[in-house]
């Protein structure tokens, strides 16, 4: 397999509202930052891929306008997934593995503030039998949390502990939206309290990938992608064991996550209870540093939060704070679809 690495990562500040910014306004500074880190220009990039959702933007073909932020002239080789940016990065990684290009720019963004994201996400459920009932994302996550409690896998104090640890870690993250000591608050949907749920907010993220010597040239300590895989499960919650995540386990296995221990894991777990599921599926030891960025409980820009996890894991390798990290992204209700990437720095 061709050597491919993440060589640069940038993100916006994640904010509850960004009324004054269009999506292009939000994306452009992040693109400029990530390019500046490498000294590359848009015209130097071999392939560009983005992730976003028309349903958040409230208009069809929303990504066509955001492309203006890239500066796609002269024309560029470019693609888009209607998914979290983690999957855009997967598409770019595969493109690099074909050997056709040596560099790729990947970005994603989401503005949740213009609407009610809990309602919007109901539109991704089975349109004939489930979506008409409008079960919202917090209610579905609460079903999963209650299943875990009933199975004896966690309890409410343990979930509160996950929330507290995440927001405490986020204190060191200048981009995070919710940080420090945050009260657990009242129940949103029992057994999940406000503190068990992600903040609603807006944000953007970008990474640059490069292959082989190009990566070494662009980055002092590239975060090599040792493996990357993603798997999807059945859509209906009624046919899934909500206390487990076989798709995460399989993706991790295919990505080589179990071959050697990791020291860091950035998990895309918007709800505290989902961290319990993911830790089990990924067989994470107690000494693994989980979500040092604060994770999705500190900032959850939808469609960007997964790529954000990969970027945060890569940045720790760039800074020498990790040698082997696992990054995870999720999509769909109750962890339906999961992606795992294994990143490594060169031996020191």
């Amino acid at each position: 397999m061709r050597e491919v690495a993440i060589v640069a990562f940038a993100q916006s500040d994640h904010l509850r509202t960004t009324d004054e910014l269009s999506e292009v306004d939000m994306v452009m500074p992040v693109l400029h930052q990530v390019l500046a880190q490498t000294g590359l220009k848009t015209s130097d990039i071999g392939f560009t891929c983005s992730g976003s959702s028309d349903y958040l933007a409230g208009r069809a073909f929303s990504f066509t306008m955001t492309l203006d932020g890239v500066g796609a002239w002269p024309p560029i080789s470019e693609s888009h997934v209607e998914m979290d940016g983690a999957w855009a990065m997967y598409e770019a990684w595969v493109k690099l593995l074909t050997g056709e290009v040596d560099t790729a720019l990947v970005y994603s963004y989401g503005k949740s503030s213009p609407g009610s994201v809990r309602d919007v996400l109901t539109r991704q459920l089975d349109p004939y039998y489930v979506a008409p009932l409008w079960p919202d994302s917090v209610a579905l996550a609460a079903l999963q949390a209650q299943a875990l409690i009933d199975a004896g896998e966690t309890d409410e104090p343990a979930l509160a502990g996950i929330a507290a640890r995440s927001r405490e870690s986020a204190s060191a993250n200048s981009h995070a939206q919710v940080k420090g000591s945050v009260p657990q608050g009242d129940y949103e949907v029992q057994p999940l309290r406000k503190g068990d749920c992600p903040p609603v907010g807006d944000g953007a993220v970008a990474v640059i990938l490069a292959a082989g010597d190009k990566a070494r040239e662009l980055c002092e300590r590239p975060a090599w992608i040792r493996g990357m895989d993603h798997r999807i499960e059945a859509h209906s919650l009624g046919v899934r064991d909500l206390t487990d995540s076989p798709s995460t386990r399989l993706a991790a296995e295919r990505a080589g996550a179990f071959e050697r221990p990791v020291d860091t894991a950035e998990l895309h777990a918007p709800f505290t209870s989902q961290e319990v599921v993911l830790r089990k599926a990924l067989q994470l030891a107690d000494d693994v540093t989980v979500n040092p960025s604060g994770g999705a409980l500190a900032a959850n820009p939808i469609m960007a939060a997964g790529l954000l996890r990969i970027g945060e894991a890569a940045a720790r390798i760039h800074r020498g704070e990790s040698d082997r990290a696992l990054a995870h992204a999720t999509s769909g209700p109750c962890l339906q679809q999961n992606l795992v990437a294994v990143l490594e720095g060169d031996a020191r």
Partner: protein
Amino acid sequence: MSSTGHATHKEPVAVVGIGQTKHVAARKDVSIAGLVREAAQRALEDAQLTWADIDAVVIGKAPDFFEGVMMPELYLADALGAVGKPMLRVHTAGSVGGSTALVASNLVASRVHRTVLTLAFEKQSESNAMWGLSLPIPFTQPLLAGAGGFFAPHVRAYMRRTGAPDHVGSLVAYKDRRNALKNPYAHLHEHGITLEKVQSSPMLWDPVRYSETCPSSDGACAMILTDRAGAARSPQPPAWMHGGAMRSEPTMFAGKDFVSPQAGKDCAADVYRQAGIADPRREIDAVEMYVPFSWYEPMWLENLGFADEGGGWKLTESGVTELDGDLPVNMSGGVLSTNPIGASGMIRFAEAALQVRGQAGEHQVDGARKVLGHAYGGGSQFFSMWLVGAQQPTS
């Protein structure tokens, strides 16, 4: 080519299964899941494979607003046998059907997976595409009454630039609708179509007439892509991918040539380079081209390098692009006869593959060895193309 010293030899990619639904205005007998499964099962039957043989699924469609389902791949995972497998969802506007196939091909070419199901669909009857595209956004240009309103001025610009006579658009529509009569999957089967009927149809967006406009269709198209080993087991002749590329440019800016966008030229040039094509007019046997409004045939003939600038309409007028012409275009009836938007690009790619496999039935071009599939989207800003051949590529 790679500058990093890595062996860039890619796995050759073969199309071994193709499935389409019969495209119609409204498939009220099936859900979205039922529609996509029908096309996927036909592709599996064509390849004589089962769901268990598929390593990954790559799905595409145009905006989620068309059916009102956000990220429908989540709900469609079960219907497409994707449970426990990787599933990717591509969206590049009107070019998405082509882009989806290219993303799937990269999974095989990179040897990440061996056999991939790729599928694109649109079930336009579940909503109204015109209003799906017309959500009001402040401070941006209103949509000018559907896609036709956007593209008609660029057709006018083409006519003015090249001196093309008024009747060329009608010739294209007359040809494509006759070709559609030979394609059992085509949506519009206008028996008794005449050139006079096309020319007397109502003017919608001058110079584009009603009969020179694509319909709104429900439909899905699926393909099975595989590697050399998979192709060797194929019961039917495979179509081999000789080149594939995507290019994008901004929707609107002062330097944009809406008549012949640079992104389209660059995309075609990349495909020809990969496929070793020096003279497309001579070396390519037929083209499945994304022509939603009739005048885009002569325009794209120039953009794709089949004619010099100003010469596209002359090829069309002289009958070169007829089914029995020297360079047949849209043998299937094209987008003008069948337009499930998200699937339209993949149908072009799949019809190109059918031709080189010799399996296009009544609309088969005799001896088609190299055929181009073409798609575009947005405001002529996204392009995706592939060239397929009857023979495995040598390089």
